[in-house]
């Protein structure tokens, strides 16, 4: 089973993908950040340049993840991804209409991914503002990120009903570093139960 986690910038996608991947032990694929991405991509995102190149870059990055996962997906496995086709489409709103026709051609890269479940994370702007300031990535301007979040979050909410197997979840009051927060996401997204690693009181360990 392939589960994609998507949402606007600063919503907590990377944290949730990592935490759920660690909980299920079947693997997870983040989209990366500075250090992983070509440095020119960050600069172009901040300045709103090269929309087709930026979108194609992330489409290829996601495609590499989905292709790799296909090689070891199996019954009973739950593999998590950051990003899906809806992500590429939601980000179209950031760019001028003149680019949209070409950007839609890029979207076709994601036609074959078809995750079994897509979780769209949404949140109040206050929460986003707090997260962005907390993570304090040097290349991110908080005001600009919040503005981008509002725009992209609106697009995710609009597009979600058009994509199959997609659930929109408000992440406010759900802490991804607490078990209860992860359980809430698992319940709301109707994901299969994970296998708990047993923890026992032990004086000796032997067969």
């Amino acid at each position, binding site marked *: 089973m392939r589960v994609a986690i998507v949402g606007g910038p600063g919503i907590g996608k990377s944290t949730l993908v990592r935490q759920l991947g660690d909980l299920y032990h079947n693997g997870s694929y983040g989209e990366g950040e500075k250090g992983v991405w070509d440095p020119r991509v960050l600069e172009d995102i901040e300045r709103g340049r090269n929309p087709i190149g930026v979108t194609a870059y992330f489409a290829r990055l996601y495609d590499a993840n989905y292709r790799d996962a296909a090689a070891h997906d199996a019954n009973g496995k739950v593999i998590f991804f950051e990003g899906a086709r809806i992500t590429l489409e939601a980000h179209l709103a950031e760019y001028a209409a003149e680019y949209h026709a070409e950007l839609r051609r890029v979207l076709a890269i994601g036609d074959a991914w078809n995750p079994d479940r897509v979780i769209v994370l949404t949140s109040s702007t206050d929460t986003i503002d707090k997260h962005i300031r907390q993570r304090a990535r040097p290349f991110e301007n908080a005001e600009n990120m919040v503005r981008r979040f509002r725009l992209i979050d609106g697009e995710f909410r609009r597009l979600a009903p058009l994509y199959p197997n*997609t659930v929109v979840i408000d992440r406010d009051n759900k802490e991804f570093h607490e078990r209860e927060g992860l359980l809430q996401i698992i319940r*709301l997204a109707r994901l299969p139960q994970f296998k708990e690693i047993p923890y026992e009181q032990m004086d000796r360990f032997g067969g």
Partner: protein
Amino acid sequence: MLKRVFFALLLLLNPALALASGPDQNLQVIPLPRDGEVLVSFKLDEALTDEVRAAIHSGLTIKFVYKVDLRRSSAVWMDRTIASAVVTATVRYDTLTRLYHYSRTLDGRIEFADTTEKEDVAWSALTREFQRLSLFRGTPLEANAEYYVRVRANASPHSNAFVWPWQGDDAMGFAKFTFVK
């Protein structure tokens, strides 16, 4: 008649007491004190009837509204409401796509929205999928004090054309708990 008036008065003055002597609840409530707050689970224990199925399949938006009160029992006078929350579960059947669109709001704010082909999942979303809801975060609770959570449900559209699973206007459930810090 006298018995009904007496029961209504009893309910008004002390619902927890009325619960102890009242009929079986079709709305089951489970409060769980944890990490300084109380998480609330509840479910309306009713099967999907043909009348309700028809109402859903008509394409109308069906809404179940659960009013959840956190209350403090009083031995001598009326119980006190400490905090309240409104949980609304909504299902709309799209007759073209044959998909059920369902969602839940907490105090008017959408907590999640999803779609399903399965009728039982949609019905569950209206009646049963209320687990460990954090409705009263930040409400100060007194250590070792007795509280109870009361949940009242009603449905819309509300007319004689539709027969809801419960009798009368509201289904109701309670559960007591002691807040241990």
